[in-house]
């Protein structure tokens, strides 16, 4: 069973790291948000993988469903924010946000 757990944790860590790298490397706001989505996929995989390896799939599923609902709320709010930022600055460049004065 440890081998299965190792497999899922390995790929979950890879997904989380890819997302973090994307957050560091990209400048487009939508790209940054896609990177956050990749991190959240890694977390879902980690939760269900651990539940599967420890014979607790039902609790893991309940947690993942909660997580997905929270994620949808987050996506809707963040994309609305991105559209508003685009309307204000006419660009999706994250560096332009540092020039805002208010």
């Amino acid at each position, binding site marked *: 069973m*440890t081998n*299965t757990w*190792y*497999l*899922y*944790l*390995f*790929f979950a860590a*890879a*997904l989380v*790291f*890819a997302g973090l*790298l*994307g957050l*560091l*490397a*990209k400048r*487009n706001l*939508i*790209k940054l948000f*896609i*990177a956050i*989505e*990749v991190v959240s*996929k890694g977390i*879902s*995989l980690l939760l*269900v*993988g*651990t*539940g*599967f390896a*420890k*014979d607790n*799939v*039902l*609790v893991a*599923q*309940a*947690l*993942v*469903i909660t997580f*997905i*609902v*929270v*994620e949808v*709320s*987050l*996506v*809707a*709010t963040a*994309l*609305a924010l*991105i*559209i508003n930022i*685009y309307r204000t600055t*006419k*660009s*999706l*460049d994250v560096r332009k946000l540092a020039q805002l004065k208010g």
Partner: protein
Amino acid sequence: MIVQTALLIGLVLFSVLAILLRDLLKSAISLAAASLLLGIIFFRMNAPYAGVFEISVVAGLITVLFILTIALTKAGDEVRESRLANWVFPLVFVAFIVIDALVMKSLLGKVPALASGPESGAFGDVLWKGRTFDLVGQIAVILAGVFSVLALFRKRDKHD
């Protein structure tokens, strides 16, 4: 096990593509493909409810929201990404994969996990009875999301 590993590799590949591709539409679609693969992985791990949610909500709804946002921000492709990052990203990622493969096995023994026997009962019992408080929190989060979207898209008053 081989099919599952292939699906996991596909998931990581599509996720990395979603970050690396320049075209925003293509990266949104590869994110949807990654979600689809994750949903199939959940199905194969005896977690059908999580799989259904992942495919219908994340691969469906969130992709639609992303494509809508990309359509509303047409000039978004013009952001100039740093060239250095395009080279550094794959190199650092491959280095992490190697470290991950070497270190993760020894880390597994140190991860604290609660001792628990195999669970029984149906998924509905666990979700509705065991995690009732989570559901209350979910309702609050959905309401917060709805109100924040309404607040962000409200019509401006004349004196604003």
